[in-house]
């Protein structure tokens, strides 16, 4: 019953709408709007939870307690944070490029939302079952760069500018190993459809058949999502807050939350592509598929946080060297090996 709860809900809604004699076109449009709203709510809830989780997890790693003053276990801290950020003034410094400065925080949420629309979060639970899902993910992930650059450039602050430049350099460089690592996945699964990729992992998760690709993908995705040790874009000990230095109030809140939205997207894609998506390990199907998905996603997020609170930040030239001199050749070798294996063994 729990297994299909969301699919059933969608079908019920569709049947309801059809039963009141709406045209199929209108029904589909309405259903998509509903799905978008659900994804929006899903992202916002997760992001708010992630803010709290990061604070708690980092506290645990640093032998502290973390927020525990507001509500039980400090859970009300989430709402207090958001309320504080909303109620603060969004300062508009004098020499900013106004249109871009105000547009950037609005646009920053678009790419993660767009990606989440195609990810299957449970059996048959993708808002849009896109044939080119994986390719689409790569394409949309690149858009983020522009928005971060907009924020950095329009702020008219040198720290922001340096941050924006770093964002562009880092994200463009890591797009390439990311893409190349995914080629191995595509070769093995023979599909670009995310549902298809999950289905193809029924025998063995791709993390076991493509460990190298997973390694490259994981590093590149962390760099794409600006997570430590690749958080050079923010690099709070060097360039204050990078592109977000000048933002305050809501503007800052949007960037701050988008950071976690990107983390969520990164974890979701890792889960989908390498950890078997919503598939239940050991045949434990008594836990619904979407719950398995959430568990895996949060495990990935926890690992990322673990790394963030352990490692120091890498330097920009090391970062570039890592991408171009280490990850790209490794990814190409991986493609080659995968291709050979596929050709000769025919996995």
């Amino acid at each position: 019953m729990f297994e299909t709860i969301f699919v059933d809900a969608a079908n019920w809604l569709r049947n309801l709408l059809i039963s009141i004699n709406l045209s199929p076109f209108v029904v589909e449009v309405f259903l998509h709007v509903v799905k978008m709203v659900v994804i929006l709510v899903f992202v916002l809830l997760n992001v708010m939870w992630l803010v709290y989780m990061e604070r708690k997890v980092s506290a645990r790693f640093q032998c502290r307690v973390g927020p525990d003053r507001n509500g039980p276990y400090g859970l009300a801290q989430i709402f207090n944070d958001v309320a504080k950020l909303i109620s603060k003034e969004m300062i508009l410094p004098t020499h900013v490029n106004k249109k871009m400065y105000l547009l950037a925080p609005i646009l920053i949420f678009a790419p993660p939302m767009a990606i989440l629309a195609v990810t299957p979060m449970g059996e048959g639970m993708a808002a849009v079952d896109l044939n080119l899902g994986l390719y689409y993910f790569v394409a949309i992930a690149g858009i983020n760069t522009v928005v971060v650059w907009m924020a950095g450039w329009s702020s008219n602050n040198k720290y922001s500018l340096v941050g924006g430049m770093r964002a562009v350099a880092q994200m463009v460089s890591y797009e390439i190993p990311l893409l190349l690592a995914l080629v191995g996945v595509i070769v093995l699964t023979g599909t670009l459809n995310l549902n298809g990729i999950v289905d193809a992992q029924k025998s063995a998760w791709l993390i076991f058949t493509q460990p190298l690709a997973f390694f490259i993908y994981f590093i590149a995705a962390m760099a794409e999502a600006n997570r430590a040790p690749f958080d050079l874009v923010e690099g709070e000990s060097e360039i204050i807050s990078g592109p977000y230095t000048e933002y305050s109030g809501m503007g800052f809140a949007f960037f701050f939350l988008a950071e976690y939205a990107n983390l969520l997207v990164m974890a979701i894609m890792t889960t989908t592509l390498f950890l078997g998506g919503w598939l239940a390990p050991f045949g434990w199907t008594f836990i619904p598929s979407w719950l398995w998905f959430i568990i895996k996603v949060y495990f990935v997020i926890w690992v990322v946080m673990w790394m963030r609170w352990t490692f120091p930040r890498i330097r920009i030239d090391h970062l570039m060297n890592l991408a171009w001199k280490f990850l790209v050749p490794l990814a190409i070798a991986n493609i080659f090996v995968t291709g050979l294996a596929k050709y000769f063994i025919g996995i």
Partner: protein
Amino acid sequence: MGEFIAFIILAVCLLGSALLVVTLRDIVHAVLCLILVFFSVAGIFILLNADFLAVVQILVYAGGVSIMVVFGVMTVQRTQIQRSNSANSRFLVAIPVVFGTFLVAAITAARNIWTPANVPVPENDIKHLAPILLDNYVIPFEAAAILLTVAMTGALLLVKEVKDSGNKS
């Protein structure tokens, strides 16, 4: 009907942002509008059942080319950015030329009687594209790859050489 509405929306979006690209005073804003143009084109492609091309459009143009242009603007533009995209005196010539081009194309298109082959574009177009691209057109494909490599090398050389001579002066 739905397709028509989508077409109208996309066309308005496309032409509007394209006009903004050539009229906005600030080159950076113009480039951001260019990204909107590319997204609209991608939308048109989806309308034309070319999903793969739409994603290529986003990946190459919106993700790659626009970033390159943005970078170009940043390295090139040193004076005030507000008036960086002004028109020169030739716009008086340009307007008749533009209208001429448009009219010729429009009239030719309107006079022609199209007989569309009423066959739907196959789903999952990438499965059909790949064999054509890698069997029938493998030589142009490789040529394109070489072209890209040559262009990249050339671009690097151009930028680097000037940097060296700049150091000397």
